């Protein structure tokens, strides 16, 4: 049987075998991170720090201590959004933000009156850099951009965006790009970046990180024990401890280590993927919701059907073809509004390196049969 799991943007499956191997190793050996110095603890601390180094490589930074473990991207985004000093009380956001950003922003609006404004964009939500130049960028405190949309897979031009923003800090939500697209925060001078471990990086749930270039800008979200400066009632200033109160998710971090040290080559090519999109785009009863330009397309996209609601389509795909997808709004009502698919939403297909070109062909076959059925009704 092929791999018919097309819900990797929700969480990746399968995981590389190394994930279970390292989780098992931790379950068998135990130990906490820091706080003491016997062998079991030293081994765990070493693994946690080696994982941090691997994450720093994924992010593209030499500042390993600026990589903060979090429980997921939502946690990382909340640290920045709630701990940032807003002077002008104005934030710029992309039109394709997830609720992990928009809900904390609504909280900020209600509690502190911080307003958010949507960047000018094209029809597929891709930021319009030319029109952005017309904005008085200096009047904003922060800009937040979802690197890859979890609805249509559009990849935003974060390097050019940061160039335009100049001194205005940029927070990138790399939840859907990590593991698929090089992040290169040092090269592109990205200020802050949030990611989650269980999607494109193929690690376990409950893992993620925040990269923060200028930590003094942001106050910690959670206060508590760090195993360092225990004589003080205040959070330490140094990194990563400033943002890492409480015992970390060592079990998950072991699994993430397994994922990051595994090598999974994609079983399909970008051309196979582009061809799939072209073929789906030519089916009459479906509307393909994807990037306007295939060079800005990550390996995920949505469709809507003129015949079936998203939930009916998702259910049919599963019942008839064992294809697993996610239907509805994907926790991104703003993105669906931007793309004209609100309130019904869409059916999303998200790929992983564990797919083969045959799996893509199988997906196309299923959709074309449903397209054909809908014509006969």
């Amino acid at each position, binding site marked *: 049987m092929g791999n018919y799991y097309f819900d990797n943007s929700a969480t990746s499956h399968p995981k590389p075998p190394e994930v279970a191997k390292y989780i098992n190793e931790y379950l068998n050996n135990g130990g906490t991170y820091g706080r003491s110095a016997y062998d079991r603890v030293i081994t765990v601390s070493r693994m946690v720090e080696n994982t941090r180094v691997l994450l720093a490589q994924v992010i593209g930074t030499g500042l390993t201590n600026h990589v903060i473990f979090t429980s997921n991207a939502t946690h990382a985004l909340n640290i920045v959004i709630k701990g940032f000093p807003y002077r002008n009380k104005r934030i710029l956001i992309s039109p394709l933000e997830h609720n992990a950003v928009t809900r904390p922003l609504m909280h900020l609006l209600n509690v502190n009156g911080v307003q958010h404004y949507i960047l000018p964009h094209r029809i597929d939500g891709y930021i319009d850099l030319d029109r952005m130049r017309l904005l008085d960028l200096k009047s904003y405190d922060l800009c937040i951009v979802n690197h890859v949309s979890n609805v249509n897979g559009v990849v935003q031009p974060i390097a050019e965006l940061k160039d335009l923003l100049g001194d205005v800090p940029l927070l990138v939500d790399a939840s859907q790009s990590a593991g698929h697209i090089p992040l290169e925060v040092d090269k592109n001078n990205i200020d802050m970046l949030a990611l989650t471990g269980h999607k494109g990086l193929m690690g376990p749930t409950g893992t993620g990180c925040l990269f923060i270039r200028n930590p003094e800008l942001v106050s910690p979200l959670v206060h508590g024990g760090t195993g360092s400066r225990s004589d003080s009632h205040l959070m330490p200033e*140094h990194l990563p401890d400033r943002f890492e109160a409480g015992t970390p998710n060592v079990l998950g971090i072991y699994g993430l280590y397994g994922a990051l040290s595994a090598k999974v080559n994609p079983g399909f090519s970008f051309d196979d993927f582009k061809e799939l999109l072209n073929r789906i785009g030519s089916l009459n009863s479906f509307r393909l919701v994807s990037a306007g330009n295939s060079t800005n397309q990550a390996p995920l996209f949505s469709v809507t059907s003129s015949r079936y609601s998203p939930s009916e389509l998702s259910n049919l795909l599963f019942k008839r073809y064992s294809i697993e997808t996610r239907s509805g709004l994907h926790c991104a009502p703003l993105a669906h509004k931007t793309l004209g698919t609100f309130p019904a939403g869409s059916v999303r297909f998200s790929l992983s390196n564990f797919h083969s070109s045959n799996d893509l062909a199988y997906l196309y076959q299923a959709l074309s049969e449903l397209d054909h059925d809908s014509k006969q009704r």
Partner: protein
Amino acid sequence: MTQSKDKCLLLFQSIHRVMQTERLIVSRGVYYQIIPVPKDYSSECGMCIEINCSDLALLEHDLQLNEIYFNIVKVKS
């Protein structure tokens, strides 16, 4: 003068720095040991690294290059 058997303790702010230093020491192939911070010294992060004081100059250079800040305590053997 530093005797070859004199030990030095390197104290760091965070576990992150201890492990980063361990990687540097391992790449130099010199003796080290991770031990609990002795009670008399201000406990920064619970663990510290013991090395031979005779290797200090070499490692100090590596640590400075990597912007790793630390305190040194000499322990007479």
